[in-house]
């Protein structure tokens, strides 16, 4: 049991830092607002968030929280299921808006 716990803790730490600081903040938003069935810190970057249990209503809260967290506004054409389908996809969208 102890080994399993520490394995999960290690996965959590590794997951949290995969993809840099932005990805960590995205995971934090998902953890707080995504209503996922697993921890956002244990998900792969490209894991499908909808398959992980994020409902469409929860995804709107995630969008809202991301706008607050990164001080950005997603234009309407980015408010699309596919843009918010994985941590990597969200990271790319955030990067695009921050770089613009």
């Amino acid at each position: 049991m102890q080994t399993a716990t520490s394995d999960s803790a290690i996965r959590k730490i590794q997951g949290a830092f995969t993809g840099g600081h932005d990805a960590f903040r995205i995971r934090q938003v998902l953890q707080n607002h995504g209503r996922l069935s697993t921890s956002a810190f244990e998900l792969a970057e490209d894991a499908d968030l909808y398959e992980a249990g994020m409902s469409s209503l929860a995804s709107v809260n995630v969008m809202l929280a991301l706008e607050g967290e990164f001080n950005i506004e997603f234009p309407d054409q980015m408010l699309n299921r596919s843009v918010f389908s994985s941590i990597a996809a969200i990271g790319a969208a955030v990067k695009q808006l921050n770089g613009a």
Partner: protein
Amino acid sequence: MEILEAIRTVVAGIAAQHAADVDEAARFPHETFAALKAARALSAAVPRDLGGQGCGMRELAAQCSALAQVCSASGMILAMHHIQVACMARHGLESAFFRDYLQRLAQDQLLIASVTSEVGTFGDTRSSICAVERKGARFELNKDATTISYGASADALLVTCRRAADSAASDQVLVLLQKGDYTLEQTTNWNTLGMRGTCSPGFNVRSSGPVEQILPGSYADSSAQTMVPYSHILWASLWQGIAGGAVARAASQVRSEARKKPGTVPPSAANLAKVMAQLQAVRHNWQAVAEEFDALQVSENAMQELLGLGWALKLNNLKMSVSDSVVQIVHQALQITGILGYKNDSPVSVGRHYRDVLSASLMVSNERIAAKSAAMLMVFKADQAAV
């Protein structure tokens, strides 16, 4: 367009003849559906190369509106059938099984019912408790459905469920159940104020079938891309049809009053003029959204765009607006017809229309839809004036 003409013939004859009895007995409109099958109306949404008529949204909606004008239940059943066919036709064409099935549907004019509601999900169609369980080449699927419209009269069911036993509640797929794959055990009754002929009690569904009957892809996508737009636009069109039926009765009474005293316009005619304006606004509302939907389909981004908040809001707006307006229109029609319209057995009776149209704000509750739109508006900017 030939289908619409054929439906108009059914409307004027068989559907009008049986509508009152369908309502009173709360029975399936089998005469009307036999006539619709003979007119090949059940394959209107099947692509042409698979033996159907390949009708777009505008045409399908016109069919539902025309039928609902005389028989609301028939209009709703045809709408729900078109919605199920559209789900298979828009998301199943890569599957040899579904191509073959749609061909069979067109050939035999099969009627498909929808099983989206479930005991315990409290009306949220985007989450399921039941799951399809694959066992080799076959699946097992059991669902405790709160309602299955015309379930007992359908040739097949299209069921929402979780993708697998360990999937999240919102990770859903659609599964087709053909006659012989399933048993239905009725759990509740359908003795309602209106829409009585849709025969929509609860059922326990027990089924098993080959795995190729699981529709490819994810219901998360097919819901936003097909189930929701087809539902809201076709429902809006049939609700407008019901209101139009009531107004037609009011108008016939005003004309018969006018004939008694040529040269003087009856006082109720001014109210008729006003309600006609409301009816036109409702009709133009669904027509505009249907035409926009059809125009979008030629774009290669069509499926992507339908996943966006802009379309979700547009469809919610249509649903809320039309379902509220149609009740007011039927109410005005009743004021024009007066006590004659209030009588159940007069030729200008609008009681059935009134009872039927009250379902519009309840079937997917407007409260729930407004709450969803409100949440979306927290991030939606209307920066392209899309809504």
